């Protein structure tokens, strides 16, 4: 959520299709998250859980940036209310909410909600086996695989790309090769059959065109 586009120019942005565009758009965000997950965390928490002060102040920043970005919008000729009004209202509202969160107002509700949730919440992974950084990277694996899909699918084709994604996800979740490899071979072919053949979604053939 950046509210203005400075920092990179169009010419650098569009040099190579898809990949850098995607990565550059995501890059600052991802790296910021990664930094946080490694530095700011108390040892016993799952990665990316931040104190309310941090998230609150971050929202104040986003809200102000959005309101400022909105105020830069050019007015529309012949209209009294232009495109700047709505982002400014929402941005200011967000900044106020952020400030309230940073001050810890309303936090009590969460403690109660957490008590409710305890009955059916997730168990954190045993901490001794993996470092925080490793967990942080693993958490980012699914979105990273999707970016890999964006870059690779036109060249490799749907089936090989899909197989790589399924294999990587399964192995990361601790599947034995006995499960992961057949899964990686069967799933993309099945998905391709249904979406390409029956629903006519144009999935690229790439290196491995399917017989249908």
């Amino acid at each position, binding site marked *: 959520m950046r509210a203005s586009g400075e920092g990179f120019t*169009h*010419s650098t*942005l*569009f*040099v*190579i*299709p898809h990949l850098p565009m995607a990565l550059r758009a995501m890059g600052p965000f991802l790296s910021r998250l990664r930094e946080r997950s490694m530095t700011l965390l108390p040892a016993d928490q799952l990665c990316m859980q931040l104190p309310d002060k941090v998230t609150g102040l971050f929202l104040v920043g986003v809200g102000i940036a959005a309101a400022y970005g909105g105020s830069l919008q050019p007015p*529309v*000729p*012949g*209209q009294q209310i232009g495109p700047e009004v709505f982002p400014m209202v929402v941005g200011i509202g967000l900044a106020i909410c952020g400030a309230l969160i940073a001050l810890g107002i309303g936090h009590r509700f969460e403690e109660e909600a957490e008590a409710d949730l305890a009955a059916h919440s997730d168990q954190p992974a045993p901490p001794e086996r993996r470092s925080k950084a490793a967990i942080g990277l693993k958490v980012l694996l699914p979105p990273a695989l999707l970016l890999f899909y964006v870059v690779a699918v*036109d*060249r490799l084709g749907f089936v090989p790309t899909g197989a790589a994604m399924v294999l990587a996800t399964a192995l990361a979740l601790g599947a034995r090769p006995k499960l992961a490899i057949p899964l990686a071979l069967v799933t993309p072919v099945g998905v391709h059959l249904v979406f390409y053949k029956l629903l*006519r979604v*144009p999935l*690229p*053939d*790439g*290196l491995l*065109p399917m017989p249908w």
Partner: protein
Amino acid sequence: MTRLTRRRLLGNAAAAGALAGAGPSLAQGAYPSRPVTVICPWAAGGGTDATVRIIASLLEQEFKQPFNVVNRTGGSGVVGHSAIASAQPDGYTLGMLTVEIAMMHWQGLTELAPGSYTPLALMNEDPPGIQVNVNSPYKTVKELADAIKASPAGKFKASGTGQGGIWHLALIGWLVAMGLKPGHVAWVPSNGAAPAMQDLAAGGLDVVTCSVPEARTMIEAGKAKSLAIMSPERNPQFKDVPTLKEALGIDYATGAWRGIAAPKGLPAEIGQKLTAALKKVNDSKEFREFMANRGFGVKWADAAGFGTFMAGSDVAMGKAMDAAGLKKA
């Protein structure tokens, strides 16, 4: 410039893919020897989608090869239009161009313009009508025009699409042709013609300038009426609605159009084959019946004619957008 670079690279990537996948088939037999993709830059279920699908199915019968319609949406039409322009010009990727291609580049949204394609055929044009609520005090377009002229600027509210959309430009063109300022009637941006027609029926608007087929259901439901049509001839579906020229003596006509085109650099013989087939489609009973059923206007122009038509539309849209203050320098 930067966008161009990206497009070229995209094109190259696509070309590499096409060569890898389809190398052998290029050599064999006459066109088309394998399925053809027809790109629709708008979502499934809309008017453009329906038109492109009927054309594709009739081309399929003509050539005995599948013509698959692919909806490439996003970027308010820019994404689909660039996908057509950046495809390999081998005749296996065609697409439908809509009037937006003559508008978006003036706003600086894309560098694509009508000249970025090989035109094949113009298939449809829908002129806007001037619709009012059925209880409106204005019974004819003359009365409405006089009332608009006599009122202070901004008193009348009109809608039909978003700010700077085709029907907004139609209104501006009409106002300018009457010697008024483009902002004399306030434009209320809407999310398409259907919500605008609903607000007209709810009494929130004075005028809606959308195409007659878009207004048709509300007119038939007795909630709205059409006072005039901004085209050179009357619509055979609505014989009673006069043209602007007949009613006001104003020679102003515009419209939203759709046509089939290929990427730039299509081999001439493939282009001629496709244009000839599209002529057959345009003349076919199925196409005519389908278009009449939806109230869409059938229009025909061959490759050269479509090119000239688009160039004319491009200039006209540029002028109207300039008047509306929407044109980027």
